[in-house]
């Protein structure tokens, strides 16, 4: 590290920073060191693995899209609307971010489970979410959506309403203003929100196993497969973990600085 580039950082802080970096890096190094690389082919070609991988991608991408569909409007409303009870709504929609995911799973069961307040009506319509891939998507959406709301609301609040006001004086309807001004300017935040939500959904475990269960080929996503393998075949668990880590790393590299730049 160059002395000129970091003026005024006390040595003690630098030491702690190094310790922090080591703490994050060591498990990754451990994973790479302990991975039975020779088994890579067999683990990856197992049917449970491919199914879990495909399911994970389908579930996480669907969840990320659902997060945008509902989270962007919610972030817009929270940042710009002035509605009664808005502060309460903001606090409640952030709850999945801080609540334990397993609690989220229990809450989802209470709402959408067979005897849940909504689930029993869905059951009448022949729709059942628990223990299905749809349930896994719902669970991942539930935990990841606050991240989209935060990104969208933060992006809007950092800018003010000057341009929307200008659009209004130029005769634009709220819909045109949204389409031509607000959303295009929010693009970087929406892209970042999608990626963060997707990453969160990809790693989702607690709410998924509680609400959707751990049915191989139906609801067993990669993290659940890792958990199961750990109890029977630790080597396979490590290989699967390396796989997940690789996907995450590829994401970070693809995004580079864009995620946190704005």
């Amino acid at each position, binding site marked *: 590290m160059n002395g000129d580039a970091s003026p005024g950082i006390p040595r003690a802080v630098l030491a702690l920073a190094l310790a922090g970096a080591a703490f994050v890096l060591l498990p990754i190094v451990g994973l790479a060191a302990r991975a039975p690389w020779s088994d890579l082919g067999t683990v990856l070609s197992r049917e449970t693995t491919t199914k879990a991988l495909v399911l994970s991608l389908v579930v996480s991408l669907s969840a990320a899209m659902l997060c945008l569909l509902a989270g962007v409007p919610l972030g817009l409303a929270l940042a710009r609307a002035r509605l009664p009870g808005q502060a309460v709504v903001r606090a409640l929609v952030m709850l999945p971010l801080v609540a334990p995911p397993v609690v989220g799973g229990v809450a989802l069961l209470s709402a959408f489970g067979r005897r849940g307040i909504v689930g029993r009506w869905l059951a009448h319509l022949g729709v059942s979410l628990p223990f299905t891939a749809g349930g896994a998507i719902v669970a991942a959406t539930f935990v990841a959506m606050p991240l989209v709301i935060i990104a969208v609301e933060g992006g809007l609040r950092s800018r003010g309403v000057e*341009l929307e006001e200008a659009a209004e004086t*130029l*005769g*634009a309807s709220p819909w045109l203003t949204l389409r031509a001004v607000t959303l295009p300017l929010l693009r970087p935040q929406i892209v970042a929100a999608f990626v963060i939500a997707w990453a969160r959904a990809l790693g989702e475990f607690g709410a998924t196993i509680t609400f959707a269960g751990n049915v191989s080929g139906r609801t067993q996503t990669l993290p659940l497969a890792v958990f199961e393998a750990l109890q029977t075949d630790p080597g396979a668990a490590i290989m699967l973990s390396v796989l997940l880590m690789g996907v995450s790393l590829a994401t970070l590299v693809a995004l580079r600085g864009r995620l946190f730049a704005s």
Partner: protein
Amino acid sequence: MSLSAHVRTHRGSFELDATIGAADGETIGLVGPNGAGKSTVVRALAGLLALDGGHMTLDGTTLDGEGIRVPVRERPVGVVFQDLRLFPNLSALDNIAFPLRAARIPRDETRRRAGELAERLGIATRKQAPPAELSGGEAQRVALARALIRRPRLLLLDEPLSALDVAARREMRTLLRAVLGSFDGIAVVVSHDPVDVMTIAGRVVILEGGHVVQDGTPEEIRRRPLSAYASEWVGVNLFRGTLSPLEPGVARLLTADGELFVAVRDPLPPETEVIATLRPSDVSIHTHPPAGSARNVIAGRISSVSIGDRARVVLAGKPPIVAELTLGSLRALDLVEGRDAFASFKATELTVVPA
């Protein structure tokens, strides 16, 4: 009157209560010190700020008051904001065309009309540029075009020249005069620069502390400013003319009705069109030809004397000069209307800007 507005609103302890009226084709200069409420008036007239009371009528249609509040986007009002507020994601042309797009006018016509206006305002070559790549003057023109394209009945310009450098300011001032001259609606120009206001606006409204303290032509305000701000900033002598070099450091300013000597720091090209300002407090009045070193001595008859905290004397010379003096000097010199006198001031007291 085609615009009749009584703007009443308050923010905390600040209270705004201003009446503004204007006829078709008129350009009003809205001036006042910082915090006087100028931008608040603009926001209220645009409908961006709800009135606490009062009303606004434009072309006989009530936009505010009597329980009516016409939505901002339905008002025939164009705004050029001080910070311009161009859409950074749209090209210059698409910015200009935006109001037509909002009015659901077909795309071909939208582009054609925006292109024509861009040409008229001298930015035809910059149509495809995003706002971030425009110079200050170009961005100002795009903002002006965007506000004009829907042919508003009321055009609000908030400090349209303040962000520009000297050269761009001169061009923009000339352009604004031309554009507003052919504009059949009403324009309200907010500015803190007396030269801008008096060269662009036919009538000046002075706002101080949320209230209108004076409303009149620049000439009326020069003759009899009703507040310290008015005499300091709006009540200045203003001469428009051609500047020609005379001798090192001095130039001759030929106005329509006389001539003056002006100190110039840099050599200038012959025949430069300029506007010169002179503060009335820098002018001395004498009853006999003065013997001092002042380069400018103008003889004439006193055409008006008005008395406030200080006295304002208008000398009908070539050119006419307004002087401000203490009540003591007024009495000592026994200056009354109809008396012949002399005004003198140094060549260095004149401030020159390109016209």
